[in-house]
């Protein structure tokens, strides 16, 4: 096992779950997201000398996965990519539930956001990119990132807070 593989393996172990979650939130389908992220990581490995020097290699993986998702959708243009909550929220963790399964109310609220807002939330909140980094990855202006994030947070507040504060009967 060479140094390159060690570095990549460490990178993969450290960021694979958050990359997958970012793509799940963006495309709304866990199985499709896992395929996309696996392919993106494979491409990262194939270009690892360059990708490892990228300022945000995890964002590179997510962006590659999202680009592949768009290409795949264009090739199969009759399949409308409607997020399917049951494909994401109802599955327990594969490791037997370490940390529990994802909260279905939160996932539902995320999947109700418009696609661009979901992408911004995925990159800003789940990959911890800053506004400028998110803007670079998505190819939009930093102000647009902030606007999308603001709208997304407002929508998530409206969606989640009333249900979390229901009085006990």
């Amino acid at each position, binding site marked *: 096992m060479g140094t390159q593989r060690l570095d990549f393996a460490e990178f993969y172990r450290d960021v694979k779950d958050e990359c997958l979650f970012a793509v799940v939130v963006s495309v709304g389908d866990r199985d499709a997201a896992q395929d996309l*992220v696996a392919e993106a*990581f494979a491409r990262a490995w*194939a270009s690892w000398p360059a990708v490892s020097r990228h300022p945000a290699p995890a964002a590179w993986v997510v962006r590659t996965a999202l680009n592949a998702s768009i290409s795949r959708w264009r*090739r199969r243009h009759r399949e409308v990519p409607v997020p399917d909550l049951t494909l*994401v929220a109802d599955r327990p963790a594969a490791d037997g539930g370490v940390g529990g399964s994802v909260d279905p109310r*939160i996932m539902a609220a995320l999947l109700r956001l418009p696609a661009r807002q979901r992408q911004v*939330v995925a990159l800003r909140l789940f990959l911890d990119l800053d506004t400028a980094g998110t803007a670079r990855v998505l190819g939009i202006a930093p102000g647009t990132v902030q606007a999308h994030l603001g709208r997304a947070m407002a929508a998530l507040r409206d969606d989640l807070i009333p249900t979390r504060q229901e009085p006990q009967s």
Partner: protein
Amino acid sequence: MNDNELITVLREQRGKVPMDTPVEQIIRRGRAVRARRRVPGVAAALGAAAAAAFAVSAALPVSHPASEPHAQLAAWTVARQADGSIKVTIRELRDPAGLQQRLRADGVPASVTFSGQQNPACQGYPGGGSQSQRRQLLGSVVTGPATGRDVMVIHPAALPSGAGLQINALFRHDPGQHGSLEGFSVGLVQASPQCTGS
């Protein structure tokens, strides 16, 4: 709940959808990606085909059988096996309509296209429900254990009523050239004269 608390709650979800693909599998795929980049003229076609081919190759394990008896005989062959399944071998990018006709004659309504083209008259089969269910259903219709990348085995008896197969063979070279097969993209469609023929 203020914004910071909301962000904390959201971020707590990150580790709850685990990526369970082993790193060894990622690296194997990465080696294949890198190897193809070294072949002149392949890289552009690869970009379009790679994601779909990866997804399908996971369902159709690959290892080209060197002893394939028909390897030099035809662009494709269709052979009914003793258990009633249909073995399809595709070698060259020729005559998808003929392959479609042959499959239909063997009891498999199919729309066959090459390299990303699709029949616009085909409509997705609605009975499969979610993508996971469709994947499971398709897995019972098309299997690839112990077959090569250019081989798929179709089980006509497992096809749902009214369903046909949409088969797209993805090649590394442009149509008309004799490229090597990258993988199959296979889905379920509604069988109809316009889509799968009559």
